[in-house]
């Protein structure tokens, strides 16, 4: 699915990623953990193709294609989904309109017929129910006036609708209370499948209580310094990031 080799990336000339290597196979869920400023969000954004980040060397292969060579919207249409840490607000544009524009551009790209208004409405209602989102939110401007939890739920709704091959969830747990976290996690678990891979970027272990990963990686100083199974997350929780950083330095 995804093969990251020796990835280096800068932001405003400052190196953030300093040689990341990561292999993700179809159907796997990987958690990327690390202290603040370790480059977790940079990695997520580089995968989605944000302009502010400059890839200085390395490669990312996604389903046989050179991901770094693709425009952000092409990546999206090919099935790369980023759930934003800070979803943006777009005044005047309803959630409904954005979702329809998005799903139809993805479908068009995939050569599937675009949905008409009725089909779309049916689909959206079904997915909204899945993430327990009230219908009124669909008719409000994108993320405007949404609480933190509602915004994150909206991200999961979009993921459910676009049915990506690879989902990258950037700090989806940040700012959520436990109930919101459970709902979001439940949505993610429903979308988990043999055909879909996921990358969970998180600072805390608690998200992993609800979404159990196949692998856990620790990102620090722009590199993955340790990888392991889900038990690694628990160990981190107990011993803190200093523990792996010291080990890596030693």
């Amino acid at each position, binding site marked *: 699915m995804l093969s990251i080799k020796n990835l280096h990336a800068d932001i*405003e000339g400052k190196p953030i990623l300093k040689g990341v290597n990561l292999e993700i196979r179809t159907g796997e869920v990987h958690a990327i953990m690390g202290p603040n400023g370790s480059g977790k969000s940079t990695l997520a954004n580089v995968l*989605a*193709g*944000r*302009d*502010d*980040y*400059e890839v200085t060397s390395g490669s990312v292969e996604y389903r046989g294609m050179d991901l770094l060579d693709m*425009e*952000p*919207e092409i*990546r*999206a*249409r090919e099935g790369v*989904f*980023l759930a*934003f840490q*800070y*979803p*943006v607000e*777009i*005044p*005047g*544009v309803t959630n409904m*309109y*954005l979702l*329809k*524009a*998005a*799903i139809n*551009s*993805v479908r068009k*790209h995939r050569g599937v017929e675009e949905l008409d*208004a009725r089909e779309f409405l049916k689909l959206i209602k079904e997915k909204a129910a899945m993430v327990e989102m009230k219908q009124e939110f669909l008719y409000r*401007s994108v993320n405007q006036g949404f609480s933190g939890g509602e915004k994150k739920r909206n991200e999961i709704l*979009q993921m459910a609708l*676009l049915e990506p091959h690879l989902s990258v969830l950037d700090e989806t747990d940040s700012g959520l209370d436990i109930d919101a976290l459970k709902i979001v996690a439940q949505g993610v678990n429903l979308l988990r499948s043999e055909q879909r891979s996921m990358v969970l970027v998180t600072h805390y272990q608690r998200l992993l209580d609800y979404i159990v990963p196949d692998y856990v990686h620790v990102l620090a100083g722009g590199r993955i310094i340790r990888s392991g199974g889900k038990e690694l997350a628990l160990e981190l929780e107990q011993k803190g990031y200093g523990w792996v950083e010291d080990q890596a330095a030693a």
Partner: protein
Amino acid sequence: MSNSEKDLAPLLQRDYTEGFVTDIDSETLPPGLDEDVIRTISEKKNEPEWMLQWRLGAFKRWLKMAPPRWAHLHHPPVDFQDISYYSAPKKRDLLDSLDEVDPKLLETYEKLGIPIDEQKMLAGVKVAVDAVFDSVSVATTFKQTLLDAGVIFCPISEALQAYPELVKQYLGSVVPSADNFYAALNSAVFSDGSFVYIPKGVRCPMELSTYFRINEMNTGQFERTLIVAEEDSYVSYLEGCTAPMRDENQLHAAVVELVAMKGAQIKYSTVQNWYPGDENGKGGIYNFVTKRGACRGQGAKISWTQVETGSAITWKYPSVVLEGDDTIGEFYSVALTNNYQQADTGTKMIHVGKNSRSTIISKGISAGKGQNAYRGLVKVLKGAENARNYSQCDSLLMGDQCGAHTFPYMEVKNPSAVVEHEATTSRIGEDQLFYCRQRGMSEEDAVSMIVNGFCKEVFKELPMEFAVEAQKLLGISLEGSVG
């Protein structure tokens, strides 16, 4: 590759498809303005003497006036002696039937998508059209159908012949002949425009529309529109404008007067698409327009909606004088300036009557090196008990070379009035664009969608067939976004 400082303006770039020239024989007065020119115009139109005297009076006042300089606009002075004040396609008699219209003119309007054939419809709706070409009206459709309903819709030159008393009664009653520099000029030299009269209790059976076209070189267009809505009547009127692409600046100085009697409603919509000049700021129309409506009777309502995308210079402030009690004035505006375009536009709401209410929604979009200013006055006079105004002026900036300015004036002399003004400035953020692209939309679509969202409150005020055109002008895909 980091390009967060990238200029988004090209995404708003569009070709000016209306920029062609119609090759037609015209009778054009040589450039220059004096009393003789005014006499000639009046004579050509076979006007009554009082009309000539009115024009000459305005001209005398104009000679003593200077162009206004308070607007946030910069342009070289206009040489008013270097403009031709009258130009008309040859061989025109009063037409009884559309069949007699010069085929070249028919072709021109065909190309512009304006139905001056009664069988054709605009966006699936029957609309009556008055087509004004340079200084004269060349065709008016559905005249008879409208007359059957009691509605007069004809060129103002024709109204001066057929209904001189009506014209005399209302002309200059809202915008006096020497109201301002450009209005005085217009009063002296206006050549054509539309006249609309809706009798008491009549709801005009279809949308009325005037389509203005400048064709001749070095010609100014000075049209005059007068709409009178008698008690409890209703009319919706649309106005569109285009011009060929030329390297010289051309002048357009129109006057529009609206009169709404007790309980009457006038909805006036404009999609202004004069040639804006090229991407280096060369050429384009100078658009200096005076538009004002008077809500004369109790409960009258006047609503201005404008989408201003063209012109090198736009100077216009469609206003409402709320004379009657319980009257309503509305102003909805989208103004786009790209490249070197400049706009100074807004409104005046003058509250005279009790319980008069006004709403102002203005959306300015600046891109390239465009300068966009909102200028508005809300004035509540002493007797205007319980007057209410709400104004909202938002600016959207695209790129770091453009400007967005807001100059509201509020003058309140009655303590029971509530006047509120809000303004915000935003830009199309990189983060918004990236978010949309991450969901699979192209950058162009994302910009369109965001601009559309920004303008939504105004577009929804436009009649459907105009909303289509307005959105096309802003390069916006339509689907599902209006309503």
